[in-house]
């Protein structure tokens, strides 16, 4: 559906993206992940035809975006990072204008039904007669989402769709994205790792204008996060717990943390490669009759992942 080849974009001397290539199959939900300034917005701007790349090619649904932009853009629904609207328009008028822009059916009845269906889908049906400027931020964002869905686009490009929304709105927008993925190929950019993990089938990590990683979220987590690092809370004396941890033989390194509960000890434990340290700990404490109260994996933060990707955090004492 989308084939990007050797994409380069330079702003003067500064190279924003440097030779990015990827292809996206029809129906995939792909997350573009990157720190601010990594080049993901530039990539998205190139994909939507907002800016032209310095070199490289972009094929969308078989049409070259650079040679035949109108045809290629016709299949794209785009929600920019900052969704702007005309303050003098009502929701329905605005969506009708977008139908005009995208050349979606001149048949008034069909158009009205299409707009109403989308309004229902994104939950703004009751508000469709209101001026957009009078809506709350969450609803404005939904209007932005609605305009992206006009004309059943084959490709949906969403630039940071949940920024600035409250938690319940974020959950709703994520659900909308997942639902849209059933009909369209979706590209979502974000700098929030958990968001990408919950929505996407595949993640492309952009760092310093290059693709730093490309794969499923699980793959990313395994490859880049530290799956073998856990925090535990155990009820008992430090000396006994210490003996059990050592006896498992699966621990590479561990350290004692500040106790959080009376009579309990907290530890951070890094397991040896190729061993599931969680199981060994569970069995060890069970056999010793020491209650293991909590065990949880340490989530790899995006920051850590990036530091790992760029090889900057291999701190000597960390492993």
């Amino acid at each position: 559906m989308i084939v990007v080849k050797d994409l380069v974009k330079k702003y003067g001397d500064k190279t924003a993206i440097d030779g990015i290539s990827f292809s996206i199959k029809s129906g995939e939900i792909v997350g573009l992940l990157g720190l601010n300034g990594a080049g993901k917005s530039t990539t998205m701007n190139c994909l939507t035809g907002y800016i032209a790349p310095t070199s490289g090619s972009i094929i969308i649904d078989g049409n070259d975006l650079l040679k035949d932009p109108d045809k290629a853009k016709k299949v794209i629904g785009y929600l920019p990072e900052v969704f702007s609207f005309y303050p003098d328009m009502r929701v329905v008028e605005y969506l009708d204008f977008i139908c005009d822009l995208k050349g979606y059916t001149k048949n008034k009845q069909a158009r009205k039904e299409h707009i109403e269906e989308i309004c229902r889908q994104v939950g703004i049906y009751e508000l469709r007669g209101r001026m957009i400027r009078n809506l709350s931020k969450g609803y404005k964002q939904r209007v932005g989402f609605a305009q992206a869905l006009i004309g059943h686009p084959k490709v949906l490009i969403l630039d940071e769709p949940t920024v600035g929304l409250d938690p319940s709105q974020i959950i709703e927008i994520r659900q909308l994205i997942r639902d849209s993925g059933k009909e369209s190929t979706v590209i979502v950019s974000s700098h929030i790792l958990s968001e990408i993990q919950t929505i996407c089938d595949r993640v492309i990590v952009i760092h310093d204008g290059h693709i730093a990683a490309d794969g499923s979220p699980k793959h990313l987590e395994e490859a880049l996060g530290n799956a073998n690092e856990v925090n535990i809370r155990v009820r008992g004396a430090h000396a006994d717990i210490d003996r059990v941890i050592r006896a498992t033989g699966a621990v590479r390194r561990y350290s004692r943390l500040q106790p959080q509960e009376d009579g309990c000890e907290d530890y951070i434990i890094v397991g040896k490669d190729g061993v599931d340290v969680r199981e060994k700990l569970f069995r060890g404490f069970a056999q010793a009759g020491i209650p293991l109260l909590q065990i949880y994996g340490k989530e790899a933060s995006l920051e850590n992942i990036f530091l790992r990707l760029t090889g900057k955090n291999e701190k000597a004492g960390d492993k």
Partner: protein
Amino acid sequence: MASIFKREFRAYFHTPLGYVIIAVAYFFTGYYFFTYNLYGATTDFTNLYGLLFPVVLFLVPVLTMRLMSEEKRSKTDQLLLTAPVSRVGIVLGKYFSAVCVFLIAISGTLIDAVITSFYGAVDWPCVIGNFLGLVLLGLALIAICLFLSSITESQVIAAVLGFAVSLFLMLVDAISLVVKSAFFRAFFEYISFKERYNPFTLGVVELQNVIFFISIAALFCVITTAQLERKRWN
């Protein structure tokens, strides 16, 4: 193009701007019509059209100031530029919406002429010539001011630049009188809007003047499109 035209034309009347521009144009048309034609008891419309020249020079920058700059400021241009509409389509849609409002604004002169025709003999070729001159002046000025609106994010700056250009176009005649070099005098006379406009006020439609105004309009529409295109490549 049609979608942009429709939106922009409606936008003039969703806000007071369109009404104010039309009201101001009608006010001055009515005022000159009253003082020259009704009070002076004449069917000659040359004076009325002559006096509308500066009114148009000051109305057009206000008419166009918002068109491109506001999209840039509020970032609504991002959706336009990523929609399957060509950049020429965007520029022409906006251009013709302003042209239509302008035509409505100056149509008062024709109404006055029709009313007058009931009471006396109106020199229709002269009126049509004058009207055509005003339309062509508008076409050229709107294109220039549309371009000025595309180079800034501020409506105020767009309007001030528009006024400056309009004033300059009025001053060009005066400059040509004081310039010694024959080449520059000829140049200033050549680009003088007033010189080009004057024959129309006498009811004389010269093809070269028609082509001059239309060329200016086309040139600035092309430059405005290039300005949008430039943003894409930079």
